[in-house]
């Protein structure tokens, strides 16, 4: 991808440590407008910490993080809110509020983050829930839904404000293959319809491959394999973390041709 495209998110030599454990160790990474980044790594390799540090949920001990061109490491919590309002995030555990029904969960960022006029909220919520095919669950509470459905509510809440950048933390973890594919199809649909810059953390190469090789066809409403220039347009970069360190950054082909035993574990299905 052309290096003159504006970086949306830039990690500059970032280190995050919890007591004696270094979770993220001197990582530098740039995600540009329209790009998809797939961050792979074993459990405990620092993927989630890196993702959370991107919007200041976890503070870094050294280095700098630029979000939309602004250094967030010097901003306090309240100053971060306007920047976070332009980012949608799906948490690994869902992060859906137990005490609110699905409608209020999805409406939460509209009311509290972008302060949409109350009259426009129900329409926007319904439209987004239709996007994740959960429009029949408005009145239900998260505890009444299955794991996959809760994940879809999480996606709806992440994308309802039409953010410029979407961060997904292990969107398919703990789901059966069919539900996992449905979730990945939603992420591709969101990326292709809204042209959202996407950062996805996962330990499954299959998820990355869907993001790198498929595009959403609005006419058929289905995912279809991207070929030739279409594939190049998807601008997917793969990153592999090991014990908090970035050990690989490159294209899917480069990932698959790597001879490093740790990296090649992720490259093969």
């Amino acid at each position: 991808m052309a290096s003159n495209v504006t970086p949306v998110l830039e990690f500059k030599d970032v280190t995050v440590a919890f007591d004696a454990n270094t979770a993220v160790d001197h990582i530098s990474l740039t995600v540009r407008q329209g790009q998809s980044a797939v961050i792979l790594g074993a459990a405990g390799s620092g993927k989630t910490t890196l993702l959370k540090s991107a919007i200041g949920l976890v503070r870094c001990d050294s280095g700098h993080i630029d979000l939309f061109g602004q250094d967030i490491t010097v901003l306090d919590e309240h100053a971060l809110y306007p920047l976070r309002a332009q980012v949608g995030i799906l948490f690994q555990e869902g992060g859906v509020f137990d005490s609110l029904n699905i409608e209020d969960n999805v409406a939460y960022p509209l009311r509290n983050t972008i302060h949409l006029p109350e009259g426009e909220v129900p329409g926007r919520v319904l439209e987004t829930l239709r996007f994740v095919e959960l429009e029949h669950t408005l009145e239900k509470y998260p505890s009444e839904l299955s794991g996959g459905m809760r994940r879809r509510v999480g996606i709806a809440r992440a994308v309802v404000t039409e953010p410029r950048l979407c961060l997904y933390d292990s969107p398919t973890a703990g789901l059966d293959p069919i539900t996992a594919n449905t979730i990945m199809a939603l992420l591709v649909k969101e990326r292709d319809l809204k042209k959202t810059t996407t950062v996805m953390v996962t330990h499954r190469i299959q998820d990355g491959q869907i993001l790198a090789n498929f595009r959403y066809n609005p006419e058929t409403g289905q995912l279809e394999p991207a070929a030739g220039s279409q594939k190049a347009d998807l601008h997917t970069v793969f990153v592999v973390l090991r014990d908090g360190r970035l050990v690989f950054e490159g294209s899917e082909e480069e990932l698959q041709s790597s001879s490093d035993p740790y990296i090649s574990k992720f490259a093969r299905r």
Partner: protein
Amino acid sequence: MLDFLKPPIQTFQDFFFLGGRTVANLPRRPHYGDDIAMQMDIIGVGSLPIVLLTGFFSGAVMALQMSRALAQYGASGQVGSIVAITLVRELGPVLTALLVAGRNGSGIASELGSMKVTEQIDAMRALGTDPLQKLVKPRLIATAVMLPLLTIIADFVGLIGGYLVAVPLLSLTTSSQYWNNAYRLLEYNDITQGLLKPFLFAIIIALVGCYYGLRTTGGTQGVGRATTQAVVVASIWIFVTTVLITRIFVNL
């Protein structure tokens, strides 16, 4: 060498940091009135039955215990004043606070702890809501308002419990003498410490519950641990605080 001191000092510092930020947030908008009202209902109305029962029986048992001791000195008529002073100064505030710590302090810690381990707190921050403002402030305000009120109710039903034992049951004194003694012996000093204590206990219960809830790690096991710690630590601080406050008021 003094490394073993680091964790408790760190905990103490973090706790006061949380308390300081919450107090600084008090005048700041948004105020989340609905959350405050809901917490008042949970903490105040929800605790009422158990506070009524405990208050009543502590007054009754106090009158029973005192009946023998006072009879030895021929002072059975003073049972009203003994029950009133003991309840208003000490038993009412401390017993009510311990009940609320067990019932609501644990509830606060487990609710916030569950939210923490399921990333709901992170989600809240990501969606532009300050958890201190949305979760801690309403719980602090609700507890600080409701605990003194619950204590007043506990004191009153305790006096009724004492009355039922002293007058109809044991005939230690007359009805008018019981209430007269109870009323006459209470000074402003007693009322002040009887209301100041629950107010301070409320701050301890709410902040300790929130603190242990918000620092929960380690999944559901961590939630259990946080809940236990919140109740134990709040109970200890209630006892320490009551000694300190009583020491100050005794000298006044």
